[in-house]
């Protein structure tokens, strides 16, 4: 253990930090953009088109396109990773808000809620399951993508995979892959629990829902 334990800890720490900031910043951008694209329909095509275009670019190429601007390192990785979360998050914010029943919205307005208050207290909470679904996909995707940033000197568990390639040595490769998958699975389960905590009312319905 000892030295290797330390390496694993560092790699895991880096993996989690890169993923956390990517999804957190992505959500901070996607929430207002999603709300705006939902409120003003004409914004939808450019918002989704732009994030869709970024999403299509292969990760290695996106990181490479950023290298001349931000150099090798954390900033480049983080910008690229944030870029990939946007399509899924914006889409799910818009779709979640779209899914709010009209009568619920009208009831809120009828009770004298201002549109802003309706959004914060009624519409966004009801959109939480869709938003969390987006966060889950974005997080699992990001955890996988972080491994690619090993090629520009970051990478978390990706460093182990890269190391396995460079030294033609299977142990770090298997370890890096397994740990990356395990991290994705663990975080995914964690986010399901977060969703349950945030939406106590939907538990009864979830039981009846089919996949």
């Amino acid at each position: 253990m000892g030295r290797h334990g330390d390496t694993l800890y560092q790699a895991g720490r880096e993996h989690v930090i890169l993923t956390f900031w990517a999804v957190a910043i992505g959500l901070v951008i996607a929430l207002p953009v999603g709300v705006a694209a939902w409120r003003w329909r004409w914004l939808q095509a450019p918002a989704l088109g732009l994030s869709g275009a970024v999403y299509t670019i292969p990760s290695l190429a996106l990181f490479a396109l950023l290298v001349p601007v931000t150099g090798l390192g954390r900033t480049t990785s983080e910008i690229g990773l944030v870029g990939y979360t946007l399509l899924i998050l914006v889409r799910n914010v818009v779709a979640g808000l779209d899914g709010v029943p009209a009568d619920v919205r009208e009831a809120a307005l009828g009770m004298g809620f201002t549109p802003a208050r309706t959004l914060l207290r009624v519409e966004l909470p009801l959109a939480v399951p869709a938003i969390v679904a987006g966060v889950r996909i974005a997080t699992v995707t990001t955890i996988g993508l972080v491994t690619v940033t090993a090629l520009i000197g970051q990478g978390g568990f990706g460093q182990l995979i890269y190391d396995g390639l460079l030294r033609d040595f299977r142990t770090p490769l298997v370890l890096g892959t397994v740990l990356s998958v395990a991290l994705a699975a663990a975080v995914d389960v964690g986010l399901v629990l977060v969703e349950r905590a945030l939406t106590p009312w939907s538990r009864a319905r979830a039981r009846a829902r089919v996949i």
Partner: protein
Amino acid sequence: MFTFLSHVVTWFTTASRWQGDHGIVHRLVEHVGMSAAATLTAVAIALPIGLVLGHTGKGALLAVNVSNVGRAIPSFALLVFGVQLFGIGAKPAYIALVALAIPPITTNTYTGVRQVDPDVVEAARGMGMRERGILARVELPVAMPLVMAGVRTAGVQVVATATLAAVVAWGGLGRYIVDGLAQKDTVQVFSGALIVAVLSMATELGLGMLQRLLTPAGLRLPRASQRKVSVFPGAAAAPEVS
């Protein structure tokens, strides 16, 4: 910045850049050829599996979970595994790309066939169609939009991951990025990435067109309703990045 961009323009306009074994044309052909071969192989494997599973209604768990696990396994790791098992070169890249493309096609085919209205299938059966005929002439056409959505997801992902294959010593357009990074040649890195980005978008658009072409006329949605945003309900439904 301006000097940098002018270097990039020079990179692209140098005639020798386009010719020979390291030229853009050769690399592009390599990249597209490998991607097409891998995607078609994956279709040949995944389509029958998805159709049979969907038709019999068996293996729902398998079909959905394969795709979720597929998403969690980094494609980079898949490539490196390929190298460890089969040595460096085209073979590990090809096998890794096929493995990568199978889950989305299987899952989408399965989902597409399951979503066919059971009344329609019963009607076909009542008209005396055999199971094989029902599968080929009723379920597959109706499922076609979803099947092709899977092929599109897989194809775009394969083109993207073929870029990474340069890291495991195969050719393709990723070579410019990987070699550029190794030589600290930012112009080459950037130019290579530009070509890859354009190719990826072209693939996305091209396969999107194919998807619309192969959708039976009766199933084509009016433009307006196509534009409606739908939620990604789970990992299985969302396209992947690699």
